[in-house]
């Protein structure tokens, strides 16, 4: 317990950094992932190809490799200089966007074709069809897996500890520098993550139960 109480500032500030990293990457990956999903369901084969290539490459690459690329390899190309924190945000966002894209796409695909055909037959415009018919139905099958994707993103922020970005995973470095008990410190970090993740898992299960009945 003393490891936690003696270093409470450290724990609070690093978990704050984790949440900040998570929030920025979550917003960016949601935006990019939705754009990619739009590419993947578009009627133009070239767009679909671009989206599919992105998703295939990023989904089959380990996140650590994406990090290594942006931290060690990207600076060699001398395009725009980015610091370690930005590199972490970029890696997490690009990687998670591929998963967000797949969730959104499969959500749209669960809406029966008849729904869209019926709304077209009624003379709805594309925007009306999307906003009033397809998306509300797609949302139900999107939210539970999207919550899992976001939980995964939250846990993935710890990968940044290998790349000199301060967040909950880097508590270990600070503790071992101070000669504190690393074993207990890491247990407290684990407890912290369980506390952060459990409510999200609970929310996800509630949504899943409520909306699986409704359809």
């Amino acid at each position: 317990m003393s490891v936690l109480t003696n270093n409470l500032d450290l724990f609070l500030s690093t978990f704050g950094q984790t949440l900040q990293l998570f929030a920025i990457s979550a917003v960016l990956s949601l935006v990019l992932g939705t754009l990619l999903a739009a590419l993947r369901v578009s009627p133009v084969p070239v767009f679909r190809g671009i989206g599919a290539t992105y998703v295939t490459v990023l989904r089959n690459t380990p996140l650590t490799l994406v990090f290594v690329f942006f931290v060690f390899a990207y600076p060699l190309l001398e395009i725009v200089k980015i610091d370690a924190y930005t590199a972490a945000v970029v890696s997490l966002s690009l990687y998670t966007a591929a998963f967000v894209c797949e969730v959104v796409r499969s959500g749209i695909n669960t809406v029966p074709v008849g729904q869209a055909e019926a709304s077209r037959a009624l003379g709805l415009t594309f925007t009306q069809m999307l906003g009033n018919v397809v998306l509300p139905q797609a949302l139900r099958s999107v939210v539970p897996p999207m919550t899992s994707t976001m939980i995964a993103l939250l846990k993935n922020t710890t990968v940044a500890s290998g790349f000199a970005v301060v967040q909950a995973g880097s508590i270990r470095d600070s503790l071992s520098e101070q000669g504190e008990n690393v074993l207990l410190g890491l247990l407290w970090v684990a407890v912290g993550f369980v506390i952060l993740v459990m409510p999200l898992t609970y929310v996800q299960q509630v949504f899943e139960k409520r909306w699986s009945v409704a359809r």
Partner: protein
Amino acid sequence: MSMVLFDIPGPKARVRHRIMAVVGIAAAVAAVAYVAMRFIATDQFSSRRLDWINYKQIQLSLLEAIGNTLTAFAAGAVLALLFGAIFAAARLSDHAWVRGPAAVIVEIFRAIPLVIMMFFFYYGLPVAGVKLSAFTAVVISLMLYNGSVLAEIFRAGINSLPKGQSEAAYALGMRKTQVMTFVLLPQALRAMMPTIISQLVVLLKDTALGFLITFEELLRWGTRIGNDAPNFGRPMISVMIVVALIYIGLCLLLSWFANYLEKRNRRNKKVIHLDDRAAQVQVAESAAASA
């Protein structure tokens, strides 16, 4: 592909699509050309920076690194499947004192980031006098995390079987264990096979996290060669492209195997087709649980 959103295009839409296709191709080509230009401008593919491929010793160390990654994957996969099977069985138990703790353990290990687990086993345990090698720490972490996810997959598979299956088996006078091993498990395993394999893809990717605790796997090999300034002038770009291609190749091979099994399942009449939506959510969930 999805045809939910768009009607079959008429003549005007076809022209529009063609214009968009041209724009799309142009944008993609421009992006690729820009990156290629940067590669050439910073001289990433000079003969000095590609020279590492020619050394026999480096080729052998590459093979060894791939071997280490695959060994960690194989050991982790076998142990995770075992762990998953045991804890799925425990969570489906009739006794609350087995079910409860199993549920808590599975939920906790699913919530802790894999990196923290690896740190715990590699940097934390020596404090208590237990010294584990990086390989052992990686394999144990992979087992605990992916095993917990697999336990949930197994449980979902068994729960989504029609109730009539177990009822009929009980009516025939089978015991609990018999119902599970002869009736429920074979069907659930077949139906969940694609999901299980996509979780194994996740496990394969997660071996790269061993990089963070100095496990000598493919990615660490890549950074070692890639940072070699005196001999090859930091060929990080070319090495990382090779490493990425190997990872993508291995993962695609596994995914392709999953797809193949799924297709074969679809033709096979012995397989009970689960509720599509439940299975889909499960797939999405396990895909998202990746690191």
